[in-house]
């Protein structure tokens, strides 16, 4: 097991991140933040990349749009992939483009056979442009839309089978979606096809009392919740160790505090690896 647990990279943590020598550490960045011509941000990513493996996590491909991925955006992503040579490239099972507007959120859609065809086609276009498979992440859901023809797990499993993409299991999103929609989170976690799981995300969530006290928001502004840790152990016990990310995008604590959460997940992966002995490390 080479890669274990990574952290979402924050520029303010550059010095600590560069120097850190923790076993199996890697970093993930939002691809869109580095789609620039030059300057200090790209230079920092280049310097970090010389010391640690990097994963590019997209928040803008809009692969569930009923249109092909934006050619200019794909060109920029391809250029960044060539520059960074990331360990993984991922984005979300969601759409964001509408009438020329880009919504910086992951919008839901009815999971129909026809939508599956479209997403398979879009993921194929991305993979063709990048010359490598991508990972697709389950987003947080806030409503059980009418018109679904299949569950999220069935949809993602079919997508992986037909497009050749891998899956990024966001355990926090599974918990948030299950809580908001009223389904069993453990059953969802148990449904992800083990062979397709290429990466796992762990993050914190919060209620939004201004909108509805019983809804959870995928806010990335808090430590990973106990229920999410339990689901994570359950997933790892079934599928084995997989590269895992601690995501934090708001109320960002010092690097050392994030490393404590990171080390907790690392210990879970190391234990799982030992349980699967004999292992050639």
């Amino acid at each position, binding site marked *: 097991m080479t890669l274990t647990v990574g952290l979402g990279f924050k520029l303010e943590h550059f010095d600590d991140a560069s120097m850190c020598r923790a076993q199996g550490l890697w970093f993930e960045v939002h691809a*869109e*933040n580095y*789609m*620039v*011509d*030059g*300057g*200090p*941000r*790209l*230079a920092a990513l280049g310097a970090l990349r010389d010391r640690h493996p990097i994963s590019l996590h997209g*928040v*803008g491909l*809009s692969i*569930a*749009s*009923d249109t092909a991925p*934006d050619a200019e*955006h794909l060109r920029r992503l391809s250029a960044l992939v060539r520059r960074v040579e990331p360990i993984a490239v991922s984005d979300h099972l969601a*759409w*964001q483009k*509408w*009438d*020329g*507007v*880009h*919504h*910086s*959120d992951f*919008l*839901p*859609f*009815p999971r*129909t*056979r*026809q*939508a*599956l*065809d*479209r997403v*398979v*086609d879009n993921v194929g276009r991305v993979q063709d442009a990048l010359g490598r498979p991508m990972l697709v992440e389950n987003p947080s859901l*806030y*409503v*059980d*839309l*009418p*018109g679904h023809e299949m569950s999220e797990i069935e949809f993602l499993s*079919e997508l992986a*089978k*037909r497009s050749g993409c891998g899956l990024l299991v966001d355990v926090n999103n599974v918990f948030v979606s299950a809580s908001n929609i009223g389904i069993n989170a453990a059953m969802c976690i148990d449904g992800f096809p083990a062979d397709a799981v290429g990466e796992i995300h762990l993050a914190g969530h919060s209620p*939004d009392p201004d*909108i*509805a006290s019983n*809804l959870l*928001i995928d806010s990335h502004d808090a430590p990973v919740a106990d229920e999410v840790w339990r689901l994570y152990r359950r997933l790892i016990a079934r599928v084995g160790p997989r590269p895992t990310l601690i995501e934090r995008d708001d109320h960002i604590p010092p690097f050392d505090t994030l490393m404590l959460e990171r080390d907790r997940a690392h210990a879970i992966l190391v234990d799982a690896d030992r349980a699967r002995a004999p292992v050639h490390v």
Partner: protein
Amino acid sequence: MSEATHPQPVSQSELARFQQAFGAALAGQGATPVAGGSALARALAIHRNTSAKAAQDALAANYPVVRALFGDDAFSACAGAFVSAEPPREPRLNAYGAGFPAFLQDYAPAAELSYASDVAALERLHVEALFAADATSLDGAALGAALDPDAVLRLHPATRFTAFSSPAVSIWLAHRDGDEAALGEIVWRPEAVLVTRPGLDVRVERINAPAVAFLSACASGQTLGVAATAAAEAGSDLPTMFAMLITAGAFA
């Protein structure tokens, strides 16, 4: 499963119709045309909120001094109005808000802050310089060797300059430095700014009218001779101006 059993979707598919209705509802255009009742209305509110917050946060990050001039609450109201009027058109939010300086010119609640639009224009140049392509700045020795009046000086990709009718540069510099004394001593007069990025750090400085004349001539592809004449006619002390521009890393 055979791909042949799943023909490519046609344009007005059910997915397209759903996204049309959902997108319109998100934009607040009419009633919610997607079935789903109050749970859907709550989900729409969450998505609207998340999307708008991301855009407003990006605007605040790109316009820190305008935010300081307004105060947090007034800036939030202004950012909300701007995001509604000119929502992001692409996923790179670090480039969001190009239209904000022009928006501020007509933003009635800030009419007494007549210089806010100029300060925003300066902050936009700062963002452009931050993300511009890398290039090695022309140093003094290289310039000396190139002092052919027929040569054309190329601006560094990060170099930006403009003239304002307000003291926007002094206001911006005083805010950046947290210099209360400087803020109190600002004299109302037109100012011009030069934004450069020698190495990786963005520099912002006041420049005079001859320097603007010189840089304008260079930017439009005029020869060094023509640019120097323009600067001299505007009253330049050429050696001092060259030294300043070279130190700033204005050329590549």
